[in-house]
């Protein structure tokens, strides 16, 4: 099953993200964000590498706002803290709150080639919906 695909937007970057469950949708959205920004966003890591596990609680007014707030937090991890997401899972996901456990490592220009600068996660054309095969979300990123 494909986890995400691009859709056309004139100025920016549109992503349609899928998941069998809501937890999977959010996890796939997180990986898609890093896939857009960095080539080989999930590189194999050696034992004893610089990976770290981060657990975060994120809140939102509703499920769509929750997705934006989750992605905006991850975007800050990269843009502000210089962390690259390697993998992650959603431990708990309601409509207004989630708990995510993420494995990150510091950005290393030797291993991580930056493809696209993503400035922000927008609310424009945002949707999170339950579909027959699970969950689907549409998000537009400002690039």
């Amino acid at each position, binding site marked *: 099953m494909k986890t995400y695909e691009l859709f*056309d*937007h*004139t100025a920016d970057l549109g992503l349609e993200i899928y998941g069998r469950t809501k937890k999977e949708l959010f996890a796939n959205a997180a990986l898609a964000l890093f896939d857009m920004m960095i080539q080989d966003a999930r590189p194999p890591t050696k034992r004893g590498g610089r990976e770290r596990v981060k657990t975060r609680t994120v809140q939102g007014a509703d499920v*769509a706002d929750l997705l934006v707030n989750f992605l905006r937090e991850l975007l800050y991890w990269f843009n*502000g803290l210089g962390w690259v997401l390697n993998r992650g899972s959603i431990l708990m996901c309601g409509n207004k709150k989630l708990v995510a456990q993420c494995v990150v490592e510091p950005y290393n220009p030797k291993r991580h080639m930056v493809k696209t600068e993503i400035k922000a996660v927008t*609310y424009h054309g*945002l949707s999170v919906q339950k579909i027959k095969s699970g969950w689907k979300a549409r998000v537009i990123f400002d690039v």
Partner: protein
Amino acid sequence: MSEIGLEKLDDNRWLLPQTGAMRVPGIIYANEKIRDLLKHDESTRQVANVAHLPGIVNFSLAMPDVHWGYGFPIGGVAAFDLETGVVSPGGVGYDINCGCRLMATRLTFPDIRDRLKELTEALYRRIPSGVGSTGYVKLSGKDQKKVLEEGAAWAVRAGYGTAQDLETTEDGGCIGGADPEKVSARALERGKQQLGTLGSGNHFLEIEAVEEIFDETAARVFGLHKGQIVIMIHTGSRGLGYQICDDYLALMVKHQTETGIALPDRQLACTYLSSGRGQNYLAAMACGANYAWANRQILMHLTREVLEKTLRASPRELGMRLVYDVCHNIAKIEKFSVAGQEKKLCVHRKGATRAYPAGHEAVPACYRSVGQPVLIPGDMGSGSYVLAGQAKAMDETFGSACHGAGRVMSRSQAIRSSRGRSISRELADRGVLVMAGSKGTLGEEMPEAYKNVHDVVDVIHQAGIAKKVAKLKSIACIKG
């Protein structure tokens, strides 16, 4: 959106009638060709959406470079009443005070022809560009506070340029009311490393030559003549600005229901200008704007140094001078005549340039006889334009004009259609030397991805918003 009917007002303007919950009608500046392009994207719907916001005055406007953005269309202009109106961080955009700076020199093309590659490479090495690029200027917390409060003046005091540069910068390179206390720790942290950097995407530094003069008098006043080498810089407030916008957008979305304002698109999240939250945003936005002016001022200084060194020219021989610096993502409190009465309004320019006419007090004294320079970069192959603001801009567009060519192709479309081609070779065939951090950027930014800048500028010229003064041809371009 084809289902939204536009009524033709004249050759350059289309009326978007007031329907549903729109508080005012919309006006889109476009010729038939540009109007046809609008059928393929959502920008007309976005012009209508902006018209839903409380306190909007006269019209929701779009310039001829209008295209589908998020929330506001790119190329959108909207003014709001200070008492009943709102301010919207999305109406300014993430890149607060993204703008253009044009520098003139005493050089002509033959002076640099043989050294062009060397010069471009030297600029590429010296001007930090690309994603996450960091600058030479390392700011202490105390210095950063001053940058946010003082803008370009801080850069001049720190040795990057001269006081004369400030005279020909919009608002002297500083918006008042900036309060660093209203900027988050995250935004401050992101700003520390990025002062004096170009960034990536559509940001650039370009060496251009004056190709054609349309208005001799205005060109003379701006100090431009045919054959002259000029340099254009396009960048903004970098991560600091993005973070300020995002922080306040999140805050406004969180409290949107308290305002009682119904929105057709969450990205238009806003708050009343008279509220504490609205005032805090303006104070933080001013910090972002001032940072961007300091950034472009520093980049100008680095450019000057590179040119002097590479061409072994004295400052006098080079004669580098700031023609003008404009911002095109901003919300500002400005005075306009509304129904015969002078009123202060909050003008949002989201991808739109201020275009004040001759005689306006905010136009630098040296240009007041002809109007404010309006800088319009085109795509990498087509070059740029310099216009001068006209009186009609005050009557019709809250003193605003277009800001560029405007995209027609999505970035992924552009990458698809550039696959298998060498965009840098194609541009070289057109006489433009390009150096970019990534091949992807070149594909995304290929000339066909944009509208024809000549059409866009002609609409503004014919509508009497700003008049054409000079056309600039690209010679070399540095992209992040």
